[in-house]
């Protein structure tokens, strides 16, 4: 080994490797692009200088009027700020959009061309190869952009931007640049589709998502802190105080475990962890394309990030300082360092992230990670057979990894959901059914993820063709979802049938009550004498109190009405007509119920109606259903206890059976292939004779 080789294996040394020679545009193009960019920057600065608030009779003002460029800036400070923000935007676009696209293409082309193998054969680690390919191909662009950033910061500082605001913005741009570069490297190592353009298109999709986050945050206050994932969103909140979103929400201050600032630690944590995980995954895929992007601990780290972000942002309750969660004795107020100028300007802690939102983050992100992990695993028939072959060959660590993987996914889901439950336990459940519905939701989530992983694995392993895999997966997913849906639909039907019966009876009892009232009144009217009626009415004086003018006139109206026999008769006639109408309505309801009513729900409805024979029983049953629906439905339909759990269990049993059958078939196939392999070719006599003199041993075939 040559002594010229360096044993320095630090990351910095590897970053200094000469990858920037690769896939750089021709020198003429680079020079042309540089000078074009330089001229554009100069042009922007000159135009902004022309827009400064010069005196009315000055030459620049004359030029501006001649060009029709309007009023320009109000002050020189505003002008400087304008130049700074424009330069920042250009710089951000260069370093976090153009450069990562170019780097992604460069790495993808190394893989397409096969030249990456020579790089992998060098003594550098694969991680350093990925890092080098991330930042080196467009290093000139980064240098240019960095210079522009410093220029913009200097101009912005002169224009009155605070050092804190400027440094936070630069930090955000750097973070987003690193994350987008890492995403590009990950995509480039994951696929080389369309001759290297697939990852580039994928990165554009990721970029659109990231850079659209400020828009999402604009319309949803509870996730407005996500705007800081995009450098443009940061500029909007930090530099452009007068922008629409800033006006709408005020200065948003992020807070994370008591640390707060315009760009909080949670955002830095998200950027940092995502970048590290993505680069790690890219390097793993380069090293071992047949493996997973991340090992299990990688997924656990991601999950930890989700927890940290969810729990760390929870104290941002959107309340005024002094009234929030942190001042309730749960966290020491002294632990909150102040950010210069931030809290003074706002008086608010920032975006409202409630416990429910935090729980949502944990659940959705956790399930997404589980799904990602399932899909990430190489579900390949060949790999399973390879493992079986190795086991048959006596590998000591013989354990079929696919099996462990599926159950790991299920276990992880249990962890995610249990943690979600822990989050939820900080809030108070309104009622017992709420608690049980939450527990059921958790159970179904765990069940779904576990068996989804089993189904996907089985389908992918059993069939070779994409169509067969898709078909098998679809059938099994349909079976599982169907077995889940049946109890849900059946429950909804029984619940709906109860309330149909209940509201039918409610309507009928109301009609009955109206008819009874009318009958009573009618009887009273028919037998009443004018004098008798008059003798029962006492008109109190207005001064006696208690009666308002309205009541007096009502009494006077009825007095006149009943005093006049003709009017009384007319009222009787009116009551008769109303009663007939109600009776008709009642009969129609009865008839509709007996002929058409409730359709397929009729059998269930009849059973409920039987126990609503009296208004009291009807009211009691309604109250019981409201408090304990499962108990009421169980009383009338005991079979739910059997079918509700049995159907999903049967579906699960089918999938497990199908899975075991598949794996056994694969194992058998692998063993058959091993049996059919030809016998050792090296004859014993030859083996003995061919022993090399240096002590080297000839082949000893299995």
């Amino acid at each position, binding site marked *: 080994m040559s002594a010229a080789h360096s044993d320095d294996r630090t990351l910095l040394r590897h970053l200094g490797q000469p990858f920037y020679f690769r896939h750089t545009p021709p020198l003429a193009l680079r020079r042309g692009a540089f000078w074009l960019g330089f001229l554009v920057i100069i042009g922007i600065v000159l135009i902004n200088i022309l827009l400064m608030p010069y005196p009315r009779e000055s030459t620049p003002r004359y030029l501006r009027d001649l060009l029709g460029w309007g009023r320009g800036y109000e002050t020189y400070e505003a002008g400087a700020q304008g130049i700074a923000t424009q330069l920042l935007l250009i710089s951000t676009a260069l370093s976090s959009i153009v450069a990562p696209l170019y780097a992604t293409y460069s790495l993808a082309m190394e893989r397409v061309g096969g030249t990456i193998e020579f790089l*992998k054969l060098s003594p550098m680690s694969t991680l350093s190869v990925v890092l080098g390919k991330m930042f080196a191909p467009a290093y000139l662009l980064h240098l240019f952009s960095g210079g522009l950033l410093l220029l913009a910061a200097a101009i912005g500082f002169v224009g009155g931007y605070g050092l804190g605001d400027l440094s936070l913005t630069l930090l955000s741009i750097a973070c987003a640049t690193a994350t987008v570069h890492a995403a590009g490297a990950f995509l480039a190592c994951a696929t080389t589709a369309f001759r290297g353009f697939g990852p580039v298109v994928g990165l554009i999709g990721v970029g659109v998502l990231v850079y659209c986050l400020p828009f999402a945050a604009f319309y949803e206050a509870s996730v407005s802190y996500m705007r800081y994932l995009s450098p443009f969103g940061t500029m909007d909140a930090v530099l452009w105080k007068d922008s629409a979103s800033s006006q709408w929400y005020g200065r948003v201050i992020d807070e994370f475990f008591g640390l707060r600032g315009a760009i909080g630690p949670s955002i830095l944590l998200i950027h940092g962890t995502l970048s590290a995980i993505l680069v790690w995954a890219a390097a793993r895929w380069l090293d071992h394309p047949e493996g997973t992007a991340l090992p299990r601990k990688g997924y656990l780290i991601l999950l930890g990030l989700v927890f940290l972000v969810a729990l760390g942002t929870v104290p941002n309750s959107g309340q005024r300082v002094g009234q929030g969660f942190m001042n309730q004795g749960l966290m020491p107020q002294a632990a909150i360092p102040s950010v210069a100028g931030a809290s003074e300007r706002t008086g608010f802690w920032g975006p409202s992230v409630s416990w429910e939102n935090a729980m949502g983050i944990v659940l959705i992100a956790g399930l997404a990670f589980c799904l990602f992990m399932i899909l990430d695993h190489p579900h390949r028939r060949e790999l399973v*057979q390879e493992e079986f*072959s190795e086991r048959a060959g006596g590998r000591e660590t013989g354990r079929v990894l696919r099996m462990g993987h599926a159950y790991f996914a299920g276990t992880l889901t249990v962890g995610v959901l249990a943690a979600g439950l822990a989050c939820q336990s900080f809030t108070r459940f309104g009622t017992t059914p709420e608690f049980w519905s939450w527990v059921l939701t958790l159970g179904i989530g765990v069940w779904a993820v576990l068996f989804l992983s089993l189904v996907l694995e089985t389908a992918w392993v059993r069939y070779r063709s994409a169509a067969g895999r898709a078909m098998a997966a679809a059938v099994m997913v349909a079976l599982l979802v169907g077995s889940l849906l049946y109890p849900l639909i059946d429950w909804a039907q029984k619940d709906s049938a109860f309330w149909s019966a209940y509201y039918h009876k409610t309507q009928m009892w109301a009609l009955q009550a109206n008819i009874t009232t009318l009958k009573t009144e009618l009887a009273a009217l028919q037998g009443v004498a004018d004098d008798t009626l008059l003798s029962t009415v006492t008109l109190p004086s207005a001064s006696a109190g208690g009666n308002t003018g309205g009541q007096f006139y009502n009494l006077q109206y009825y007095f006149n009405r009943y005093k006049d026999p003709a009017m009384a008769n007319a009222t009787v006639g009116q009551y008769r007509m109303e009663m007939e109408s109600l009776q008709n309505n009642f009969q129609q309801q009865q008839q509709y119920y007996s002929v058409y009513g409730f359709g397929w729900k009729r059998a269930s409805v009849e059973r409920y109606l039987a126990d609503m024979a009296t208004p009291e029983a009807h009211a009691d049953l309604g109250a019981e259903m409201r408090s304990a629906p499962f108990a009421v439905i169980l009383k009338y339909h005991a079979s739910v206890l059997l079918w509700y759990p049995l159907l999903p269990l049967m579906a699960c049993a089918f999938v497990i059976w199908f899975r075991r059958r598949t794996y056994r078939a694969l194992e058998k196939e692998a063993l058959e292939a091993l049996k059919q392999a030809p016998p050792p070719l090296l004859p014993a006599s030859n083996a003995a004779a061919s*022993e090399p003199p*240096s002590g*080297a041993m000839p*082949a*000893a075939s299995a």
Partner: protein
Amino acid sequence: MIACDGLTRYYGSFRAVDALSFTIERGAVCALVGPNGAGKSTTMRMLSTLLRPSRGHATVGGCDVVKDREGVRRQIGYLPETFQLYEDMPVERYLHFFARAYGLDARLAAERIADYLERLGLLGKRAEKVGALSRGMRQRLGVAKSFLHDPDVVFLDEPASGLDPVARTELRDFLKFQQHLGKTVVVSSHVLKELADFCDHIAIMQDGRLVEYGPLSGEQGVLARYGEAGRGGKAYVLKLLKDAPRAELLMKEFPGLTNLKRLDVTLTFELAGGEEAGAALLGHLVGQGFQVTRFAEEEVDLEHVYRKASGGRGEV
């Protein structure tokens, strides 16, 4: 220098390399031969850390190919059978690029690059872009790149493919030069005769397994053993003017004669009993009136060894 113990690689249920176990000493030049699909390239890729073995262990220079890949990579040079180069780079700059990637001192790298360019006949092409090189020139550049960082072990997978006869000679000389420097070289090639010129060990692979391994020369060497054929005695070639089928029938009865094969008027066979038996057979045939135009011992070369070792199943 290189040690494999039960090295196995599966592609699904297909066993590409099966329990390969051998040791190559420092400074040995080992020819790895076998038909297409025998597992030569897979073996080389596993030993050069580009492919993870399914089972078994292998070390190169004491470093495990799975656990200490960087350690292995520091010691090896590898030229795959098919490889891609950076088309838009000049030849000299390409070599400088990899010299820096391997952490070579700039002055040393410049000296070594100049030396290798001259030895491999690339000096006149040093300023040309890689994309403009012919296939043979690209192959030479690949060889230069593989030896650039002065590795202790070099794996060359079909290095002579695409080279004209002169270039092959130059490559052979270059490899001999490296051999003198004490490098351990594992080279696979279909041109067995050329391998015999500079290889001192041979490993024959078939169906993923090693069917023969050992030194080429010496009393226990492969050539010596296969020269005696190990089974039926010396191998002979007999050519007649006519009546070869009748001679074949007659020779089958001759004592000690085995493995008799006939192609038109040429017969090959093995005969026990040494030169006396050969003379007796020749006299017997002439006495029977056969007109013999050639009677000679068959030349033993790598091809012969390969055919014998693989039972004639593999076509090189």
